[in-house]
């Protein structure tokens, strides 16, 4: 008797809870992306770097449009003039009177473009190559990864320099050359991720529910790969920019009148003693950018790290 009352009471509460829950609006979920974003926002170095990066990108894109000079304009009245507000050359000019500020911003366009495009090339090749190797596994995987190992063992710089010498210096070639070598890491990372994802229970659960291969890759594998890929992309961009700078520095990069931060640093280094500003400003932009990308990448890695989730 008593038991029954007790039971009915507890039953009612369960029903009440449900009734109440039905009346309430849906609770909003926090996806892993949102979680990661909040963690990233708590990372001060990454946030500062992000803001700086936005400013640099804005300056590089908009700056040359509103500047009073073109990058190749030579101001014969002010050659090798130091930074000054009066002349209007805030960062000074080089030996032939070109404005360092405008040239730095224009060079930034090229440097960032090379970074983005070459990374994109390595992203596309690397992700598709790695995903195919990982998803099909077996012999396909073994052959594909051996190929990667072999290319990996080639001396990369030598390879790029050879390409430049044979085909001449062309900016497209720089994109392709750097991207074509950088995809190796991407392929390895993506392959490893795909391999372990393929064997997870949620992929098997999807198969058991009748989901076809195509949808499994699109709906389950790719979204779960994305985190790692994004982190890797952010860390590849500065690497590529650095490689381009190095190539330009040794005289194999972009050609005049086009310039990049690496090329400007190269020019500046030649006049380092007489006109140090020609070296300092592009070098600062280059360094700050590299640091920013690295901090953002590190921050993203920490934010997306699944170990943090527990």
């Amino acid at each position, binding site marked *: 008797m008593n038991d029954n009352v007790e039971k009915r009471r507890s039953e009612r509460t369960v029903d009440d809870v449900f009734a109440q829950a039905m009346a309430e609006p849906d609770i909003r979920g926090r996806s892993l992306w949102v979680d990661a974003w909040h963690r990233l926002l708590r990372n001060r170095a990454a946030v500062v770097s992000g803001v700086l990066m936005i400013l640099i990108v804005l300056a590089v894109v908009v700056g040359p449009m509103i500047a009073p000079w073109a990058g190749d304009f030579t101001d014969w009245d002010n050659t090798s003039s130091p930074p000054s507000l009066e002349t209007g050359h805030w960062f000074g000019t080089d030996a032939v009177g070109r404005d360092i500020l405008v040239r730095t911003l224009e060079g930034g366009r090229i440097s960032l473009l090379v970074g983005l495009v070459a990374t994109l090339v390595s992203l596309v090749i690397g992700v598709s190559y790695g995903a195919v190797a990982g998803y099909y596994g077996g012999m396909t995987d073994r052959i594909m990864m051996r190929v990667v190992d072999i290319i990996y063992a080639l001396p990369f710089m030598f390879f790029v320099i050879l390409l430049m010498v044979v085909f001449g210096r062309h900016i497209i070639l720089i994109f392709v050359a750097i991207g074509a070598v950088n995809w190796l890491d991407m392929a390895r990372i993506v392959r490893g991720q795909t391999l372990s994802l393929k064997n997870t229970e949620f992929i*098997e659960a999807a198969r058991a529910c009748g989901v076809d291969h195509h949808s499994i890759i699109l709906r389950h594998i790719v979204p779960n790969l994305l985190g790692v890929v994004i982190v890797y992309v952010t860390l590849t961009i500065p690497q590529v920019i650095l490689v381009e700078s190095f190539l330009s520095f040794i005289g194999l990069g972009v050609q005049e009148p086009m310039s990049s931060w690496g090329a400007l640093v190269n020019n500046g280094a030649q006049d380092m003693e007489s006109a140090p500003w020609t070296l300092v400003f592009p070098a600062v932009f280059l360094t700050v950018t590299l640091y920013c990308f690295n901090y953002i990448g590190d921050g993203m890695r920490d934010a997306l790290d699944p170990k943090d989730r527990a």
Partner: protein
Amino acid sequence: MSKPVLRVQDLSVTFTSLAGSVFNRQERQIRAVDGINFELFAGETLGIVGESGCGKSTLARAILGLLPPNRGRVMWMGDNLTELDEEAMRQRRKELQIVFQDPVASLDPRMTAGDIISEPLWTFYPKMARLQVDERTRGMMKMVGLLPNQINRYPHEFSGGQCQRIGIARSLVLNPRLLICDEPVSALDVSIQAQIVNLLQDLQKKLGLALIFVAHDLSVVRHISDRVMVMYMGQAMEVSEKERLYRKPLHPYTNALMKSVPVPDPKLAAAARRENWLTGDMPSPYRRPKGCVFHDRCPFKVKRCEADVPPLRRMENGDRVACHRAEDLDLSVVEA
């Protein structure tokens, strides 16, 4: 009873792995599932029990065509599932569902509970109206004891038990006829295990499912099963009606498993430990013993056991056992 809905005949799965150096390649084979036979009737629950690594999950996957068997047939409502092509099998998946061992790992961490539960609906009925899908999803959530207003939450925002409820909802959303639960509770807290088992039992009655419930522990399947199959090294040792099996196991291995069931009373537990005959470890799956696979751990072993493989024989009462000495052993359980 009527005709069985599922009839598994001589089902075998062998895994091959390469071992040794490049110059001395050896193929090693594991017979993870080795000639399993059983049948299952509509609305019936079969418990499958065996130690870790005995091939329970592999059996479950082979039945559902998630990995290809080397031999044998899976007859489902008159069709041999192992012979269906990929698309035909995919269509059949509406009727055959599974709940996995690890509740968290079996849910895509980047999808909401609602997306996970409704994925089978989208897959098979892509034209279904959004509202209808939503309604059905919420209905399933309520049925498995989840608050429907949590539909937009992600797996990491639920507890293990709740995740398993999501998994159960997903497996039932298409109204399957057969549900295989592969150790659905072994990753959960003891306090939650009973809730999930009860939920599955209720749902099975309500929906008239044929249920296969896998566990590594006889006590877990005791309440839910009608019959129990005991597996050892990929083979069936005993397939018995539940009451009889718990009263008087026919196979020494079943008996040993029963002794290793945790006993609440400490005095009894000590006695059980003393009498726990399950000595030694399971032999390496690569080197399967000749004769009876259980012979090197069996306290009742006789000469014959090392040479002859005991077939799975049907006893008078309809139970089946693979032991030479089934008749002359009395393994009755003395209830304290």
